[in-house]
């Protein structure tokens, strides 16, 4: 029996919206610690890993592990039915055929219930070990989103070069090239505006902008983004949830064939 109640439906709405473009179907694995999702996009380049911790819920109960195979497209439609401030409760049986979503208006006595049929989704589970990364960058998520959006117009690939004192984003396309250079910067008043680079080894990696564009859809989840890079390994883009949990994207880099 799963019962999880969000204080505001907006959190789940944001989460679903930021994932649904790259992953259509995914299994919500509910444990006593919270809800986890791991899914890979169709082209198997981008891996989405979500943890909504128990703390994110105002009430949470999960006696036995429950897997909810959810079609995110439909789920997103259901979630949109509630107002942002509404309480949102997820309800499911132990081996459910459907999941119940209940919206409760905080002021009025209005309760709306939606039931979503679950799907049987075959999925692979990737064991992701904690890895050593060469570089860790913390920066405002909106800043990163802007860089990706801007450079996306020029090419399909984004090159990220991290040296000791700068992070350089470059994209070279047929119509032209563009680059953005960021330097470490600390804003004492607004720490979330700081750019923070921790460098063990310089890094030069290329990513598909198409996938980065999917990643930045999660910008609204957190004001900062943590980018962890290492040579020849998937980069980790992490949005921390203020309420507990995270949304991580693992993006496989592009390789030059010759190397």
């Amino acid at each position, binding site marked *: 029996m799963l019962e999880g109640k969000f204080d505001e439906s907006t959190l789940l709405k944001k989460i679903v919206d930021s994932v649904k473009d790259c992953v259509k179907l995914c*299994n919500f694995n509910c444990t006593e610690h919270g809800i986890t999702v791991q899914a*890979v996009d*169709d*082209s*198997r*380049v*981008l*891996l989405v890993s979500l943890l909504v911790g128990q703390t994110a819920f105002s009430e949470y109960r999960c006696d036995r592990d429950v*897997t909810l195979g959810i079609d995110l497209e439909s789920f997103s439609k259901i979630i949109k039915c509630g107002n942002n401030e509404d309480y949102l409760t997820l309800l499911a049986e132990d*081996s459910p055929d459907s999941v119940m979503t209940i919206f409760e208006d905080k002021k009025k006595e209005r309760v709306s219930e939606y039931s979503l049929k679950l799907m*049987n*989704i*075959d*999925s*692979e*589970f*990737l*064991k*992701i070990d904690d890895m050593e990364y060469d570089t860790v960058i913390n920066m405002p998520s909106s800043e990163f989103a802007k860089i990706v959006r801007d450079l996306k117009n020029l*090419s*399909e*690939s984004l090159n990220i070069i991290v040296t000791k004192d700068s992070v350089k984003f470059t994209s070279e396309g047929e119509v032209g090239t563009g680059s953005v250079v960021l330097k470490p910067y600390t804003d004492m008043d607004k720490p979330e505006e700081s750019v923070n680079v921790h460098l063990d080894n310089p890094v030069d990696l*290329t990513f*598909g902008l198409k996938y980065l564009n999917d990643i930045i859809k999660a910008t609204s989840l957190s004001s900062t983004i943590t980018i962890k890079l290492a040579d020849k*390994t*998937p980069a980790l883009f992490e949005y921390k949830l203020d309420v507990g949990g995270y949304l991580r994207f*693992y993006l*496989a*880099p*592009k*390789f*030059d*064939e010759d190397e």
Partner: protein
Amino acid sequence: MGVNSLWDILGPTARPVRLEALSRKKLAVDASIWIYQFLKAVRDAEGNSLPQSHIVGFFRRICKLLYFGILPIFVFDGGAPALKRDTINQRRQRRQGNSDSTRQSAQKLLAIHVQREAERARAAAKKKQVSLEDDDDVIYLEDLPISHPSHGSQPIVKDSTPTSSIAQGDTFKKADEYHLPDLTEFRVSKDDNRIMPEEEYLEADFDHVDGIDINTVDPKSKEFLLLPTATQYMILSHLRLRSRLRMGYRKEQLEELFPNSMEFSKFQIQQVQKRNFYTQKLMNVAGMGDEGNATRRIAGDKDRKYALVRNEDGWTLALQGEQSTSENPVTLDDEGEEIERGPANHRKERPLGTTGGPADMPIPKVDVEVIKDEDDSESDFEEVPLENRQGVGSSKSGEEDDDEFQKALIQSIYVQYENRPTEEQPIEIKTVTSDGFDKDELKRAVEFSKQDLFKLQEEEEKLKLKEEVSRKEEKRTMEKGDSIQTFADFSLGRSIFDEPLKIEDKEAPVNAKKSDLDFGSSFLFRAEETNTIDYKPKKTESQPDNAFPTTDAADALEIEKLADEKEETEEEGEKSKPKGQNLPVWFNSDIPQKLNPHNVQFISNENEYSSTSRKYQEDEEAGLISWSEARNYLEDDESQDGQSGSEYEDDDDVQVTGAAVVPSEASEEEIDSVPVEDEREDESRKEKESEREKRKADLMDYDFEEEEEEELVEQLRTEEADHEQFRNNIKKSHDLALAAINTSVTEEQLLQEQMQKSKRDSDEVTQNMITDVQELLKRFGIPYITAPMEAEAQCAELVKIGLVDGIITDDSDCFLFGGDRVYKNMFNQKQYVECYILDDIEAKVALNQDRLIELALLLGSDYTEGIKGIGPVLAMEILAEFGTLKEFKRWFDENTKTTIVKNKADMTPLQKNLLTRIKNGKLFLPDSFPDSVIFSAYKLPEVDHDRSEFKWGVPSLDQIRSFLMYNLRWTQSKVDEVLVPLIRDMNRKRAEGTQSTIGEFFPQEYIQSRKEIKLGKRMKTATTMLNKRKKTGK
């Protein structure tokens, strides 16, 4: 292919994988059956198989693979293991056996039926005996002489009631639905219009019309014209009907008549010509000849029009320029005449045709007159088709250059000849290739004969003077009898040259004198000779077949005078006409190599008037050989050939001198050698062909079951649609103009292709195809290997040793060899590929490699026939029930070979079920079951264990282009349509880096879904049992 219905079992375990996810995956492609698939299933819109289907198919598939960034390695079959061959043979035999047994049973049924009938007849006969005796003088239809000449004689139809089994009526009882009463005779009423009356029947015989035997009648004779028009019409239309291509022969008869298909073609051409003649004649009789010439202008073409020109006795539809209209009818006229003469005689041959003697058999001279006539016209008849063309050409040139000098004229003719071949060549080549010759071969042959002729010319020049002198003398001294021996050597090798003379002979009884006269004025003799040829048709035209000798002689003399007076140019011009007459002979046989010699001659001979005529003669001789060749082919048909051959001998002595014999013999030899060579080549070609067929048959061993085949066709059709879509997509995604790429394939590259191709062509068909494909792969930069034995086994090995990440195959055998990560339906339209992983299979349907092999033993595969009557579900149940096949066999033996009666209650439902099957003879296990050989064949296949890594190159646009353009006759734009965007895409990927996938970095663990996969109930039970067995370690 593969294990029967194994895919049905494994189907539910498939994991859908997006094509994109396969990017950068190294996949071994089992290409062994691709070629066969394409051969079988790729058809054009009309359902014909395409000659280069394998290349198209491979090209498409390669494009698809590359587009999705897959790194393919193509694996080809090395050889088929003995086990596989045996199985295939057994299967075929079994199929054969089935049809045999049905035939046998049919025969038995027939035998029974016949026996029953015989008994019945015997019984009936006893009863009938007495009454039958009375009917002795009844005439039965089948007893009547068919060729009874008188019509209207006693009718067969009798009104008296004959006694028969029907008359006895009550005795007849039907044995079955189809049993008819025995008929000893039948009767019809006179008014019954279902039955043809006797007169009609006789007429329908076609041999007689109004009492005239159409075989002997000559539609050209005066007598014929005197017949009533209706009769004429009937005769002609019957003759026309008879000239239908097969003349009512059955195929077998024709094959006997013409062991060589070449001969048959010639015969057919003859028949067509005959038909043409009859048709024209028929038109005449029908009164169509009375109207004037009809012309029709071609819209938009001011100076050209179609003209239906009425000539002396025929119609010619021609496309003409305004200028030449006046000229053309004349030449065409000749042709019409020729045609007419030819068949008329040809038809005459039939009654004349006695037993066909050898060509050089001497024949009493009495026959000569008749045969001569026939033979001339026959040869003329053979000449017809090309003469037309040539005639037009020469007359045109004559018209244009009328007043010019001889040299100029010759040049112009030469130019024309040069031009003409370009027009004519294709036509000839067409006809010739249809006879099994190659364009190349022809060209070679032409070259060959050219050289010969040059040589001969030189020789002749030297001999010329000598000849001039010696000829006069020898002519006179030579007696007919003497020359027979000389000519026995090359009896058939007498020329058309002779034939014009023969005409002279025939027409002028004083031929000996006349020819003397001719030779006396040696120079002019040639001119005159040509003239006679020219005028001859007109003469014969105006007169019935048996020409009046006096007028002819007078004509000839006149012509001679004319020739005397005429300018040399005119003579040349005229000469070109008779030359034209030569060509048709070549047209009939070896042809074009003699077409070109004319050019040669014309250049070199310029002023040498006599030498040209000499050459002409020689040329004719050259021509004759081929014509005699041709006639040889027709020997069976034209039995009088031998006679005509001896006929030559009579004539030849008149004109050919000893000196002339030398060059002509030489030329004969040389030219003779050409057709022989051709024949040889032809033969070897045939051999090759048959060999090919054999091989083909061997290689077609892949047994596609019928459904499977249909499926295949369907699949490939969708694949084609898919490719179309793919092409559109790829085109859309690259809207840069293709024109931006300015490299293109040059002629030279195409020629190189041709060279390579011709090298490869020396091998047999399928090997050829494989090399084709491998060549294509090379140009795409894709590695390929040829497995020592089976490609599937090699693919499995490649996965095992980690050289590749998966296998692309539709062959379920692959699992039995231990193949993992099998991608099926890669080339279907779907975006998802089915991926089969051994672990999945084990987890979901509890099958590992050993169990899969055991399944194969039950179901049948390439290596084993399987057990009859066991389907996939039952096979799974058996495995679940007994665990292993050995156990199953033990149980089987227990129940069949021992008599221990078991308590049925102890048995599981499945065992009961199996037992009933055994009792009904529907299930039987051979003693050798389960065959361990098959186990080891799957477990330890012969494979290459080489661990060296594969390397992928870059597709070479130019090379692929030229390859496809040459082999598929695609246009460059068609190739570029797909190829250029594809390669550009690949280059971009290379430049910007190839996208890696997550799976390359994180180990995967497949989470089995909570819910069971969809399996049939019985299958599910079996799977559960198998799983339990596995867990208990059994």
